[in-house]
């Protein structure tokens, strides 16, 4: 079971009642505060814990509005980027508020009104981190409504009941909207007792996604769909090569192009504002820019920078002795993973409107509060003067944990005195992404006389993931001495192996690398789980039994073992090659959610094909089992895409390719025809979902290929030699 986390206190500060805009009551309760961590705690957190939701630190404090039609609007501190957070949050709130999920409308909180997460939407934490605070908010609001209804009805609050947005007494009933409309003053009760699991009506059910209709009928819900009256369009010219510096700019020819309003030099970039987007693009082609390129980086340069043994070293796990040949033959394998692009379908961009003393920015972002602070700073404003309005995101995957381009849109808007919508081109996306860093791994293993592992070591080199990012204070890295993003999945979960080491080698690369869904997990698990399977084969043992023998019942051990057992059983795992297909198993634990996959693979004309995936995930309480499954399916597909197809390279200083197609990705024809997801519940609370299933997929495929063909593939993307 997941350990009980210490209960955070909710401080109840304010409660507002506001009229107008169809709003009859506004509830604003409480803020969570992120604890200042010390090293040991943080390392543990990075490994297993769900960090608490971190609150906004602004005065805006709006969680719920009761609308005139008796629906409730929830201002979500987390954004919706496909992970289904809005649906899960509606279910959680519905159960405490006593309304139907369909009565809840979820919107992403804007910085001037609602509570936005001071950190981010990410880390698979939307549901897990809001589970406790949201229930407390909702239950408090229900009690407030009841207490007020008691006054209005002249009844005893204890005798009232609530259902579907209505308070009932023996005498009569009032809707939440009626209560809120008539209320003049509210009493703030203590946080009431929360519902027990047996009382959940909506949590744990496959409630339909709340955003299904807008997404199926084409509603304008994304950042790039936003418009403001009088809006102009912008495109930005960025450095042509890694490390290039703007040397000279000649915008005369471009300025004469149709529709061009202004050409603005930005920091190492040039912005072109025009009446329409095609005009902005056409004018960009006429801008003459010269760049200083101190060095034309090549792929080999990166590979030689990024190697186990180079950069900053940090031992992230240590038990027993370092492995040495003196104690017996050591097997050593080297693995690599390439630079990965986010390639989210909605390009980045921002709609900004800077006016006298205030600014509004509408965009798809995972860092709402940080973006506000950045824009405010760039404009010389106070954060309260800037309203960041997050929309639905056309994919996040970590790409939108850095949306500093909102600054550029704001500067362009200020330069022309009108709203400006800036959109990345797809080439810009591919060349100026904050990439998944490439990695290099050396894994060493030795079998003892009992045929079990006596030593296992994982040495891994990575570029920045968390280091240098906005959402983790850099002091944290000094305390830890390691990049905790690169570390995800880097430690060895097999605690029965007496001699274990995990050693990180960190190097900052000449281009930006950062968060990419599941961080280091995909590559680290690929390396470790490939080696473990290899050793199981060399030891002549069943890959599941071999793994189980190396895991104790301590900590999360029992839960890891359970997913492995369930996966081989549900998949009918067999070591034999049957009908030209072989199976592969791999497992990992990420943010306290263990996951195991069994894949069924064939190799046809040199191409690896995945036919079937059996996925077992223990994510604790699945608030919406259907959407947990959807996240597993999506993680599997995204992981397969990265594991089998995707690769960016540096060529003469340019990151390439710059378009879908040449940047190969999993398409419909690559998707397994069968994906079966099984959920185990090893905890009473929801645990992270959106990333853990990415972990084992690459290794599972590699292990199947090894069993089918005898070849041990050690480089991503997996290609037959």
């Amino acid at each position, binding site marked *: 079971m997941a350990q009980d986390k210490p209960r955070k206190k909710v401080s109840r500060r304010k409660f507002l009642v506001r009229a107008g805009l169809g709003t009859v009551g506004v509830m604003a309760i409480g803020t969570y505060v992120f604890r200042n961590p010390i090293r040991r705690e943080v390392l543990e957190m990075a490994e297993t814990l769900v960090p608490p939701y971190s609150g906004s630190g602004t005065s805006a404090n709006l969680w719920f509005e009761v609308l005139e039609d008796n629906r409730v609007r929830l201002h979500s501190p987390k954004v919706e*980027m*496909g*992970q*289904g957070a809005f649906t899960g949050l509606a279910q959680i709130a519905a159960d405490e508020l006593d309304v139907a999920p369909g009565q809840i409308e979820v919107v992403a909180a804007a910085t001037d009104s609602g509570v936005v997460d001071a950190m981010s939407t990410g880390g698979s934490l939307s549901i897990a981190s809001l589970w406790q605070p949201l229930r407390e908010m909702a239950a408090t609001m229900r009690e407030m409504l009841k207490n007020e209804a008691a006054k209005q009805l002249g009844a005893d609050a204890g005798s009232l009941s609530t259902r579907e947005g209505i308070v009932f007494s023996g005498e009569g009933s009032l809707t939440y909207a009626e209560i809120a409309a008539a209320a003049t003053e509210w009493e703030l009760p203590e946080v009431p007792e929360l519902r027990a699991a047996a009382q959940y009506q909506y949590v744990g059910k496959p409630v*339909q*996604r709340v*955003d*299904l*209709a*807008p*997404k*199926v*009928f*084409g*509603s*304008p*819900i*994304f950042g790039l*769909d936003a*418009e403001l009256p009088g809006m102009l*369009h912008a495109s930005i010219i960025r450095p042509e090569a890694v490390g290039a510096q703007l040397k000279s700019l000649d915008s005369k020819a471009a300025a004469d192009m*149709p529709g061009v309003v202004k050409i603005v030099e930005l920091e190492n970039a040039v912005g072109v504002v025009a009446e*329409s*987007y*095609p005009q902005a693009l056409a004018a960009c082609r006429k801008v003459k820019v010269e760049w200083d390129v101190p060095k034309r980086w090549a792929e080999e340069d990166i590979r030689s920078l990024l190697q186990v043994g180079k950069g900053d070293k940090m031992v992230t796990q240590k038990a027993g002795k370092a492995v040495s040949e003196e104690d017996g033959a050591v097997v050593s394998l080297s693995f690599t993973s390439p630079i990965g692009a986010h*390639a*989210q*379908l*909605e*390009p980045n961009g921002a709609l900004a409107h800077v006016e006298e003393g205030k600014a509004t920015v509408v965009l798809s972002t995972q860092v709402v509060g940080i973006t506000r602070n950045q824009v405010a700073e760039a404009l010389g404003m106070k954060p309260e003067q800037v309203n960041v309005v997050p929309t*639905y*995101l*056309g*994919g*996040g*995957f970590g790409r939108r944990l850095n949306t500093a381009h909102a600054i550029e849109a704001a500067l362009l808007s200020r330069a022309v005195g009108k709203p400006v919508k800036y*959109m990345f*081109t*797809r080439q810009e996306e591919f060349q100026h992404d904050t990439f998944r860093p490439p990695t290099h791994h050396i894994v060493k293993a030795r079998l003892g006389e009992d045929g079990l592992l006596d030593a296992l070591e994982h040495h891994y080199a990575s570029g920045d993931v968390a280091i240098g990012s906005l959402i983790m204070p850099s002091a944290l890295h000094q305390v830890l001495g390691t990049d905790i993003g690169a570390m995800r999945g880097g430690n060895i979960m097999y605690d029965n192996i007496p001699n274990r080491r995990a050693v990180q080698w960190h190097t900052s690369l000449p281009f930006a690398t950062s968060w990419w869904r599941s961080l280091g997990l995909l590559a680290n698990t690929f390396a470790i789980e490939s080696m473990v399977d290899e050793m199981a084969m060399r030891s002549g043992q069943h890959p599941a039994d071999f793994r189980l023998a190396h895991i104790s019942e301590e900590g999360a051990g029992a839960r890891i073992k359970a997913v492995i057992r369930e996966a081989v059983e549900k998949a009918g795992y067999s070591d034999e090659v049957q009908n030209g297909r072989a199976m592969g198993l791999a497992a990992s634990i990420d943010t306290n959610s263990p996951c195991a996959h069994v894949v069924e693979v064939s190799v046809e004309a040199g191409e690896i094909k995945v036919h079937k995936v059996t996925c077992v995930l223990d994510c604790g309480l699945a608030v919406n089992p*259907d*959407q947990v499954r*959807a996240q597993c*399916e*999506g993680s*599997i*597909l*995204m992981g397969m*895409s990265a594991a089998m197809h995707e690769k960016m390279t540096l060529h003469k200083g340019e990151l390439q390719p710059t*378009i*879908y*197609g040449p940047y190969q*990705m*999993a*398409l*419909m*024809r*690559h*998707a*397994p025809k069968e*994906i079966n997801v099984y959920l185990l519940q090893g905890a009473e609370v929801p645990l992270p979902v959106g990333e853990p299933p990415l972990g084992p997929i690459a290794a599972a495929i590699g292990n199947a290929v090894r069993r089918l063909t005898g070849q041990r593939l050690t480089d991503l993307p997996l290609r037959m030699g």
Partner: protein
Amino acid sequence: MKIAFTINGRAQSVEIEDGNTPLLWVIRDQLNLKGTKFGCGKAACGACTILVDGEAVRCCSYAAKLAEGKQITTIEGLGTRAQPHPVQQAWIEEVVPQCGYCQPGFIMATAALLEKNPAPTDEDIDNNIVNVCRCGTYYRMRKAIHRAAALQAQQVAVNPKNQ
């Protein structure tokens, strides 16, 4: 120049400066139909797929002047919440979308496929539905496409005039 076409059943004429402007921007920015998405601008992702005379077209790479006299359907004109197109209905029943950004393009591409091939096999789907979904909803999409084919067949059986 002026171009005239029918979009979602309505006659429309628009003034464009350059006939080679991609139709996508006419649809999104001049007609304010935002359901058709910009993903790449190079006919490489399918997010901008619409129907032009019943054919799936990636309108980011389709000159607006070519639309003259054509029948155009975008996601907004495919079906309504009250009367969803079978593909939309199937998409809802299978709960396909995640982030949703690619979905209009896939739905339009599927609608075009089912027009030509009312009962596509898995292989037909693999060969014809070649858009990009980063969220990896392919597995549910395939199920939804088969379901849409079945729904469409039912509708035709009930009301042969729909054919």
